[in-house]
């Protein structure tokens, strides 16, 4: 067993287990909060992008273009140094809040794009048909539009969630203590890169596998006419 201890000393990892657990907790918290907020914000973006009003469409389209064409790391720095100047309350925020704010601002346009595609994927004939049988707006939304939009939106939304979780790793750069930071801490205290970074990689991989299985499950459950129509 000596070669294993040489390569990967799991006893050191065991000593740092509480740090890894704390980091993982923060990663999942940051990702979870960002996910909910960016879906809400993303829905507004989707509506604005579908709008005919130039005053609404143009600024949002410019914002989306900016987010898509600049690196997340630079956006995190911009939020980290810029937000306290814009919002006086932000001066007392912890690094975690800045991290979540940056992640939400970054992932909302991607979420918005997915939601917009989902809304547009419902054929007009469906809505017209529902009108023809005398459904009210709310009934149409509840029974016709949303179920189909939802079925088309959920799989890419899960994919974007996987991206969001991976993106939280960049928060370690603005000293949020998340999963990657735990590995960096181990490496800086013990100078054991294998134990630090292979552990983190395996941790992220485990999260990814869970999401992959979830995506497959959702796909199978939703495999109905709405999903198959997408080709």
């Amino acid at each position, binding site marked *: 067993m000596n070669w294993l201890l040489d390569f990967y000393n799991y006893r050191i990892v065991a000593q740092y287990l509480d740090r890894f657990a704390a980091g993982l907790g923060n990663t999942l918290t940051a990702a979870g909060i960002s996910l909910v907020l960016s879906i809400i914000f993303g829905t507004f973006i989707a509506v604005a992008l579908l709008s005919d009003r130039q005053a609404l469409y143009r600024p949002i389209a410019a914002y989306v273009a*900016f987010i898509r064409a600049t690196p997340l790391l630079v956006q995190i720095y911009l939020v980290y140094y810029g937000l306290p100047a814009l919002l006086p309350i932000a001066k007392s925020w912890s690094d975690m809040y800045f991290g979540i704010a940056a992640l939400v601002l970054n992932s909302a346009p991607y979420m918005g794009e997915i939601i917009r595609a989902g809304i547009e994927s419902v054929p007009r004939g469906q809505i017209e048909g529902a009108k023809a049988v005398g459904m009210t707006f709310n009934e149409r939304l509840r029974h016709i539009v949303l179920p189909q939009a939802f079925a088309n939106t959920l799989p890419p939304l899960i994919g974007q969630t996987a991206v969001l979780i991976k993106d939280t790793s960049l928060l370690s750069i603005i000293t949020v203590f998340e999963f990657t930071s735990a590995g960096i801490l181990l490496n800086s205290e013990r100078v054991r890169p294998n134990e630090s970074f292979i552990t983190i990689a395996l941790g992220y*991989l485990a999260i990814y596998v869970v999401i992959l299985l979830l995506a497959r499950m959702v796909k199978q459950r939703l495999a109905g006419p709405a999903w198959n129509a997408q080709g």
Partner: protein
Amino acid sequence: MLERYWAITVSLFPFLWKGFIETLYISLVAIVVGSLIGFFIGVVRSQRVPVLNGLFGLYIHTLRGTPFLVQLYLFYFVLPNSGISWLSWDSITAAFVALSVYTSSYVAEIVKAAIEAVPRGQSEAATALGMTRLERLWYVVLPQALKLTVPPMSGVYVMIIKSTAILSVIGISELTRQGEISILRFPRDVLFIYGLIAAMYFVYCYPVLRFARWAERRVGAARIVDLD
């Protein structure tokens, strides 16, 4: 106020420009090398070769399941620590290898999906004409598949360009890193300098994004990758 910003821009520009060229260079090399590796893996995976299929599947999922930052740490800290002499590379080699390998995982999935999107009848007709497997692939399937890869590939390239910013963490003197150094000279204008950097990335990435959208309209937007 404006004059001050103008003065900062003028004095920093040559420095940031150097970083921008480095970003351009690293991203282009990674895109070319990564695409070649990814193309090969994608073609092999589309043929469902028994053992290779599983191995390459593992390779792709490992790369897509971990953040690029963590992969970079693996290439920069863990591999040189393995005791194998040719793996004890410097930071710039680690950056090139990490970014190319990362690119290849995305390109491979796109190429595989595009090959599978070419209608079966094409391949069957080629079989009926007596073409071998390689001939079918080379003369019939690949030319049609390549066209389909253009829109998603441009999207991935933008992602790769943006990922080069992360290389600043291991001290590669690309655009973001040059900006961080500039901040030591003008510590009061952190926000402005990051804004300047963002603008330079925008100038590089936005045309590629526009091209992707244009190509999507030409080729038809096939959303062929759903978990990325």
